[in-house]
């Protein structure tokens, strides 16, 4: 699974190091202070159109490796993909030549309505066919492989027949796509549905996992002793998720790891501190590089 290397001098592949999710409010700080961050990831949908955000991202792109992360392709839509949206994504991948492009194992569009959330799929053979067809279409259109991310979920369908980890592995095996392993999402979903998070991790095909996401989540009290974990990306990564992250690295080796924080976005320093925590853990799992040189 070779990464496509961008043309030109801008940094290409995403390194097996900690990056942060870049939001508009930090553009200026990044351009002015050039923080010591290995790479950035942005939401593709935030850069459709033109104007200042794109101009600033191009400036940032000249110095940093970049990953494009989508929330709107709706890979699980039975209706197929929105051709206009796919075209907007294609144009941005051409313009920014990202090291990675990723989307979610979820759906958000039905009958031409956009439901503005990453909605859960029934995990059935039919849904597997739909997702694989859509992933193949994206990869053909973008002329590159993508990563598909496991979602956080708050409900399951009665007629699901395939465990989520097997479903993801099957999508990767059938389409050649990679897996974006969101460790926080595994923790949240496992907690909400009574799954074994370690077993989930262990069941993912290590060779297909190309990136890890880490984020904070919240615990919502529904009364009468009932709680549910909500993936709101509005707080630091919790200790239990850091532990699961170590487990993930033990399975997959050192991988590009993203710190996501989208709600109540803190100062850039808070994000770089979180990235440094991930970096310290990553260090222990990096294979020493052997440099074979002729001279």
């Amino acid at each position, binding site marked *: 699974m070779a990464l496509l290397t961008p043309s030109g001098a801008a940094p290409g592949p995403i390194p097996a190091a900690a990056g942060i999710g870049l939001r508009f409010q930090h553009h200026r700080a990044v351009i002015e202070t050039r923080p010591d961050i290995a790479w950035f990831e942005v939401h593709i*949908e935030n850069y*459709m*159109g*033109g*104007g*200042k955000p*794109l*101009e600033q991202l191009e400036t940032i792109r000249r110095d940093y490796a970049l990953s494009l992360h989508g*929330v*709107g*392709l*709706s890979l*699980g*839509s*039975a*209706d197929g993909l*929105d051709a*206009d*949206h796919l075209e*907007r994504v294609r144009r941005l991948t051409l313009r920014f030549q990202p090291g990675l492009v990723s989307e979610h194992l979820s*759906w*958000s*569009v*039905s*009958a*031409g*309505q*956009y*439901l*503005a*959330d990453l*909605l859960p*799929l*029934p995990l*059935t053979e*039919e*849904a597997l066919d*739909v997702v694989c067809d859509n992933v193949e279409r994206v990869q053909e259109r973008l002329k590159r492989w993508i990563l598909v991310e496991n979602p956080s979920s*708050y*409900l*399951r*369908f*009665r*007629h699901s027949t395939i465990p989520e980890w097997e479903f993801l592995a099957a999508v990767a095996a059938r389409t050649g796509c990679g897996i974006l392993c969101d460790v926080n999402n595994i923790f949240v979903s496992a907690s909400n549905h009574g799954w074994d998070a370690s077993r989930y991790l262990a069941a993912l095909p290590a060779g297909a996992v190309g990136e890890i996401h880490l984020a904070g989540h919240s615990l919502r009290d*529904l009364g*009468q002793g*009932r709680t*549910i974990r*909500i993936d709101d990306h509005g707080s630091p990564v919790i200790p239990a998720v850091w532990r699961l992250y170590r487990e993930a690295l033990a399975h997959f080796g050192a991988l590009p790891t993203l710190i996501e924080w989208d709600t109540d976005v803190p100062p850039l320093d808070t994000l770089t501190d979180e990235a440094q925590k991930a970096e310290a853990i990553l260090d222990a799992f990096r294979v020493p590089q052997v440099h074979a040189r002729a001279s």
Partner: protein
Amino acid sequence: MPALRELQRQFARGMWSPSESGTIEAWIEGDAIAEADRLSIYRNTMTGVITNAMRLTYPVVERLVGAKFFAGAVGIFMAANLPRSAYLNAYGADFAAFLAGFTPAASLPYLPDVAALEWAVAGAAAADDAPALDARDLAGFDPIALEALRLIPHPSLRLVRLTTPADTIWRILTAGDEAELAGITLATEPFTVILHRRTEGIALRRLSELECAVTEPILQGRPLGEALMAGGGIDAVALLAEHLASGRFTRTA
């Protein structure tokens, strides 16, 4: 067992209308946490994301009515105007028209105009990039060729027709000077605002009726000679020079 397409249709119905969520709930695993409560987590996220997108497009409308009123109005608006695309920058085009008929906002007669202006501003901010045409690009044309020339507006260029001083209100609130609002006279003749995106931000200015009479045909792609004749007594050439200097038109690629 529903087919995926049918499940997604029913899920969408249940998201927009809790009273129509019975079919989808029957397909959801329930336990101590009821199916409806699980579904409502997604519904809350959806309405939150859409409201937030509207907040980014209509910040001055929100300032004028307050966050709670704004969220309520957007909730009613979105139920009748479902997003068609994940590109939410393009969502909310009809909010001004909605507000014009929204009785609870009737005491703020300028609100639909402010919304119309903010929609144009947001559209200009997110419009595609394009190189500006300047006077030097036209230097090589002889007078007859110049008269026949048709210009292409910059993708960010917008004309907005207003019947209240919404542009003044927008300026004051964007600058954060609420206290100045008290000094505004609401009664005004209808007028037109021209706006477009420049490097330093959105540039906005009122056009007189005659300036409008020259500018509109240019925007409609009429030959320059014809458009410049439409201005009656005004110095149409000076107006064109201003349009060009300000970057309101673009070169073809």
